[in-house]
């Protein structure tokens, strides 16, 4: 039981280090509070953004926390892939360059899993294979349209959906 846990942990840790470096250009790793008896302690995330000292994770900025959390999710996914991932505005705190880096990583991870991401952000929409538009009609009901041609938001404005 403990052996299986350590196998999973080591692999996810290695994934986390690679992915965190790619997303943030910093250094990160996972640690067990009790390496000798993992189930007696928790799992801690160590994250060091570029040019900075290792920081308490709670002190990280909103964008840095988002990238750290997503690195953990992707690390987990590479170890135990699921058929789909559905993300609701996980890029909301990211600046332009981090949003772009995340979008490219979702794109590359989507080779092994289906990704559905609710997003108003241009980098996410530009990197996607497909786009769905949602709107509320005057009758008060939500409707969905598939979008053939993606109109990129000028600044976070909804793309103009063209019915499929």
């Amino acid at each position, binding site marked *: 039981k403990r052996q299986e846990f350590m196998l999973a942990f080591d692999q996810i840790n290695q994934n986390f280090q690679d992915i965190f470096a790619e997303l943030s250009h910093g250094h990160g790793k996972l640690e067990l509070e009790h390496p000798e008896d993992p*189930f007696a302690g928790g799992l801690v995330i160590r994250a060091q953004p570029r040019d900075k000292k290792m920081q308490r994770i709670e002190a990280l900025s909103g964008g840095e926390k988002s990238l750290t959390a997503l690195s953990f999710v992707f690390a987990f996914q590479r170890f*135990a892939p699921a058929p789909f991932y559905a993300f609701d505005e996980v890029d909301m705190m990211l600046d332009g360059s981090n949003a772009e880096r995340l979008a490219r990583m979702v794109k590359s991870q989507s080779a092994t899993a289906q990704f*559905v991401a609710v997003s108003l952000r241009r980098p*996410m929409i530009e990197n996607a*294979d497909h786009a769905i538009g949602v709107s509320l009609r005057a009758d008060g009901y939500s409707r969905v349209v598939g979008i053939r041609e993606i109109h990129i938001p000028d600044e976070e404005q909804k793309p103009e959906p063209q019915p499929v």
Partner: protein
Amino acid sequence: MRIKEIELDNFKSFGKHTLVPLLDGFTTISGPNGSGKSNIIDSLLFALGLSSTRSMRAERLPDLLNNLSGKNEARVTVRFLNNDNETLEVSRRIRVKENSYTSTYWLNGKTATLTEIHEELMKYNVSPTGFNVIMQGDVTGIVTMSATERRKIIDELA
């Protein structure tokens, strides 16, 4: 394996029967505030039994019925397609009567318990703790959760 389509019937703001077809790869969902994007995410949580009623922003299950249409039930069906083109179908319906309501799950057309749904989905690494669905505002929760909670996520795998 991937989601082939999500069928929403009277669920939250989707008072009109709606089919959301999904292709493989990377899809974005966009639209104005309040249009229904997060409600689509909620429909996945609802049908697959992945979260509490509160996490879908409802106090009780009947809140999930569209409040304009006057209908007394809501249903969501998620159809998966695996690599051999076989379908896996999970469906859930809330039906409201005078002072009570029922919640029914179906797995491939037969009624099922939530436990049976969870066991089937677990074979594909789909579970409430597997990060398959990250809700709006929740992403940093992975960083702020306790170390023990985070370790238990890996326990589930091993």
